[in-house]
């Protein structure tokens, strides 16, 4: 018989419960009488799912590798993560997918589970479809050209049709590269003041509109990556009202920071799409609350320190996000921007639904993937405390609220410790 373990007195959505785990599954979530919370209890959350990361292996292990990326995911509260295909070589064939999965299984046999995203086009070159069936057979759960926008709408159409037959989503990095050549920051007052080449918001929204129209015409789904602008949100809202099968994601950094962060030319704030305006942040916060944007992802994009320590325009895009995502989002809960329920929907329920993964609803038989989170504590991401090899985040050395005490996947601790059991 599978081992049985009780995690006593944890708070699930405001209610004190005992969480009972049997083997790798949830046996029961049992409310503890009418006991009031003492404020000392840990918060119980389902294991998070991040469907957009870059783990850099194979090819750029000086930035991150599968082992360090999964370690960062474990300490960040994730039980499942996806990794994008822009590795070297590109994950556009079964051999690379298989290598990724084998490495993950060897280095982190207990998880977090890795779910590769296959390339949409061969070599991400945007010319020919990648071997999508072969990638699906090898274990890819979606297709994307992330990092290299698909400007050929004909190819985008074929990719969406082909993957619809495979019943796997296509994730589009929405950017019209002809509108953003050399852009390094949002096109606006800040770019003009700093004398930096701007990326206009329409570079994203035009591609969002295209993808929505493709999905509407073809009647097949499309998932829009890292949405960052108000117009994009408005288009997605319109599309969903019309019943177009579109889903979308954004990242914590687009809910928290604006182009103002770039005022000191800090390369740690350089990301693609670039940080937007306060108005974009307002629109995105409303969109995640209302479900216009379905999910949150980190777009974890680790870089080596030396790569970011160069002048702004030359520095690579990207923010390292796996370590800090939950604490950053908890700060939004503290500000009443989001509720705990929103967090669970945005990081667990909806990503599981869109990407066909199993999440933990704490029903008997659900996978025992959960976190114990201490909202009363805090931590500070530093090069030493971050597990990711990439320390490139604007919140480096800033104190963040909350702390993960345990990340448990399938009944086993990936990070932290089980609390003392009571008899």
């Amino acid at each position, binding site marked *: 018989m599978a081992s049985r373990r009780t995690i006593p007195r944890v708070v699930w959505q405001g209610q004190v419960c005992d969480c009972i785990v049997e083997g790798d599954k949830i046996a029961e979530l049992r409310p503890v009488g009418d006991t009031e919370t003492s404020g000392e209890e840990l918060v119980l959350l389902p294991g998070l799912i991040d469907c957009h990361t870059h783990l850099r292996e194979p090819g750029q292990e000086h930035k991150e590798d599968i082992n360090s990326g999964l370690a960062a995911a474990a300490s960040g509260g994730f039980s499942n993560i996806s990794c994008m295909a822009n590795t070297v070589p590109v994950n556009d064939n079964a051999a690379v997918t298989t290598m990724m999965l084998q490495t993950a299984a060897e280095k982190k046999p207990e998880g977090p589970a890795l779910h590769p995203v296959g390339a949409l086009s061969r070599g991400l070159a945007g010319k020919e479809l990648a*071997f999508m069936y072969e990638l699906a057979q090898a274990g890819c759960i979606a297709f994307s050209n992330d990092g290299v926008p698909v400007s050929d709408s004909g190819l985008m159409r074929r990719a969406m*049709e*082909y993957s619809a037959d495979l019943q796997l989503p296509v994730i589009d990095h929405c950017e019209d590269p002809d509108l953003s050549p050399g852009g390094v920051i949002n096109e606006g007052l800040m770019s003009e003041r700093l004398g930096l080449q701007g990326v206009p918001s329409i570079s994203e929204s035009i591609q969002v509109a295209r993808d929505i129209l493709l999905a509407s015409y073809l009647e*097949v789904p499309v998932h829009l990556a890292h949405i960052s602008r108000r117009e994009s949100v408005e288009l997605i809202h319109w599309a969903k009202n019309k019943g177009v099968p579109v889903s979308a994601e954004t990242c914590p950094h687009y809910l928290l920071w604006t182009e103002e962060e770039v005022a000191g030319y800090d390369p740690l704030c350089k990301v693609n799409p670039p940080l937007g305006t306060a108005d974009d942040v307002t629109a995105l916060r409303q969109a995640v609350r209302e479900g216009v944007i379905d999910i949150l992802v980190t777009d974890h994009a680790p870089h080596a320190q030396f790569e970011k320590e160069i002048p702004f325009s030359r520095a690579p895009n990207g923010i390292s996000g796996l370590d800090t995502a939950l604490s950053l989002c908890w700060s939004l809960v503290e500000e009443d921007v989001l509720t705990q329920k929103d967090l669970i929907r945005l990081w667990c329920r909806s990503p599981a639904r869109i990407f066909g993964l199993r999440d933990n609803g704490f029903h008997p038989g659900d996978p025992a993937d959960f976190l114990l989170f201490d909202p009363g504590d805090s931590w500070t991401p530093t090069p030493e405390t971050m597990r990711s090899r990439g320390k490139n985040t604007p919140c480096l050395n800033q104190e963040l609220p909350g702390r993960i005490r345990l990340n448990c996947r399938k009944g086993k601790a990936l990070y932290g410790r089980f609390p003392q059991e009571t008899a």
Partner: protein
Amino acid sequence: MEWTHKDLLSVTQLTSAEILDIFHLAENFEEIGTRPVKKTPTLRGKSVLLFFAEPSTRTKTSFDIAAKRLSADTFSLATSGSSLEKGEDLRDTGLTLQAMQPDAIVIRHSQSGSADFLAQQLQCSVINAGDGWHAHPTQALLDGFSLYKLWGEFRGRTLLLLGDIAHSRVARSDIELFTKLGASVRLCGPRTLLPRYIRDWPVTVYSDLEEACRGVDAVQCLRLQLERQRSGLLPSLREYATRFGLRKRHMELARPGARIMHPGPLNRGIEIDSDLADSPESLILDQVSSGIAIRMTLLYLFLTSISRRSE
């Protein structure tokens, strides 16, 4: 039978009764091919022009043999070195050919609608031997005839068309013919090779080949034009073969006695497993001989109705 058509442009113009009449006649004409002397004087003095502006081996030879078995004279235009290659437009070519006074012109052309175009220009009969993605009526008739000889009755039968439907004149003509005769038609292929508005066609669409084969009476594999991969509709031919190549295990799901067809030429190992193409269930070679009988029948109907009309 009463034959009132001037031209054969697509299956659309034929009634199911006419199609069955063609099959009945074809059974008689097929018998001629089994004689020691495979020739009758039926169409002596008639001339048939074979105008193939697109490469073709089997259809052209089939028409040529059909005409000669009925003692008609055939003339063919070579594809290469023809005035067409020198840039002459189809209307001038057609009028020039008509001035040579053939009784019928058989046309194969890469442009959809070219047979209709020629038929409007010319007084003689025009028989469409394949125009672009539009129609290939004699292929559909010979496919139907091959199965008619086995089945007799089409109602209650299911045919699966497998492969590139969007760019296939064979698929369009087969769908029309088999549904007219009361058979059900299924389609299977990657969505990138299916027409967008296929849900409005009188067919059932499958994306999984095993599901598509379950309980069918015949499978017609369509030739995969290898340029479909180059034009971005498929990731690779290998993936196509893995997902949509017909294999023995698929036919094991079909109704016992189910047949395998292919209009040719075959890409062995891509749309069809090589052994399967040569198996006893394969009708592929019968399709070729049925084609001669069907084309004899059509030439007979057109060329004798002309003389009746002029009497």
